[in-house]
């Protein structure tokens, strides 16, 4: 049923020795959604996905997938596809052998589609997985992940190493596969701008916690950029939370919440109201200062 949480994390903590990577992370993800897991390097994206896939055990807290704990669990493992850079396959298998093996393992395996995508990506069927280039490996892993049509697909930085044109194609392939066979898909990336059109929701993770979990439309409309006279804007925004601020010789800009401002009124005051993209929202919400890199050079 759509609308029921399929993945639930409650107060999850994960430590590697003394280093705490995730702490008191709580979230739930509904069945059938295509979500983006966004965060900066080291925010804990991969750790969270590994926990969901059952490859790691949480130090504290509780994770349930299909109502069960995924760690060391065959039922969840056979219904979750985890695509990551470190995927390994038997060394003596060609890519076609791997597909044939997958056919026996995954009940929904799309053999023809897998072969057509491989051909489209110019990867020969008789190649060995370990001989593929970095980008080809990522492409192969993603094709493998899509063709398996598992109930949950976790894609950890699936486009790593791919060139620009194949990335665009593969994003389109994810969307088409999702339309053909709706399922829960989580894609982690630090390149939100190239995939935001695909997503229904964004899960922003920062310092091992969920910073924001909202629909893409809401994130795109959350903040606005105001440009114009510095004194006027400062006065108008004095009681608002400022997410970003930049001042130079000729103009002043500030980023605030959209629902705090009156757009029509500002336009009459000669203040420019500009959109802030979802990827900028994520950047502003996870950056340290208010002025970005320019502050460092002050």
């Amino acid at each position: 049923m759509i609308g029921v949480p399929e993945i639930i994390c409650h107060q999850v903590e994960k430590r590697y020795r003394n280093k705490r990577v995730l702490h008191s992370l709580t979230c739930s993800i509904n069945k059938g959604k295509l979500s983006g897991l966004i965060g900066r390097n080291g925010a804990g994206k991969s750790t969270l996905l590994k926990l969901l896939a059952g490859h790691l055990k949480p130090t504290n807290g509780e994770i349930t997938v299909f109502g069960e704990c995924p760690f060391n669990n065959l039922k969840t493992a056979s219904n979750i596809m985890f695509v990551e850079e470190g995927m390994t396959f038997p060394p003596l298998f060609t890519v076609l052998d791997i597909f044939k093996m997958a056919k026996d393992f995954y009940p929904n395996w799309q053999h023809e589609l897998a072969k057509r995508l491989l051909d489209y990506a110019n990867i020969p069927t008789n190649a060995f997985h370990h001989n593929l280039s970095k980008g080809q490996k990522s492409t192969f892993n993603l094709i493998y992940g899509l063709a398996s049509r598992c109930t949950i697909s976790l894609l950890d930085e699936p486009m790593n190493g791919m060139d620009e044109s194949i990335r665009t194609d593969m994003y389109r392939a994810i969307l088409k596969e999702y339309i053909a066979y709706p399922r829960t898909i989580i894609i982690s990336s630090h390149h939100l701008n190239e995939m935001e059109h695909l997503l229904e929701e964004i899960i922003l993770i920062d310092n091992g916690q969920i910073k924001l979990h909202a629909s893409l439309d809401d994130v795109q409309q959350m903040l606005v950029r105001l440009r114009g006279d510095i004194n006027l804007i400062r006065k108008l925004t004095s009681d608002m939370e400022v997410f970003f601020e930049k001042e130079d010789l000729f103009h002043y800009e500030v980023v605030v919440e959209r629902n705090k401002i009156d757009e029509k009124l500002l336009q009459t005051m000669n203040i420019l109201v500009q959109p802030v993209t979802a990827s900028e929202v994520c950047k502003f919400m996870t950056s340290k200062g208010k002025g970005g890199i320019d502050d460092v050079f002050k």
Partner: protein
Amino acid sequence: MNLKQESNTPIYIQIAEWIENEIIADQLLENGKVFSQYQLAEMFNINPATAGKGLAILLENGILYKKRGLGMFVQEGSKELILSKRHNEKLSNLAKEIVEEAKRLFVSDSELIELIKKIQREG
């Protein structure tokens, strides 16, 4: 049509406006079937839920109606409804913006009218 990811107008509203434009242009006829959210998602390369939101707005505004199990269809009289709504809201807002900008740039009334006429001739 291209969607503007970077815009003050949310994607689902851009989708709703696109469908309205198709109705105005008689590409979609009254009582005719409208694209499903999955077709729209495929056409515009967007998430089906976003496309679905666009359809939901039109359903709410009485532009479309739903037949159980068959999809969504264009409501009778929706073309007039859209035309009058656009006239009252969008066109007058745009006109207001133009007048304000003209004032800011010290463009006289006759100059502005001349400019509009010129664009009409060229268009």
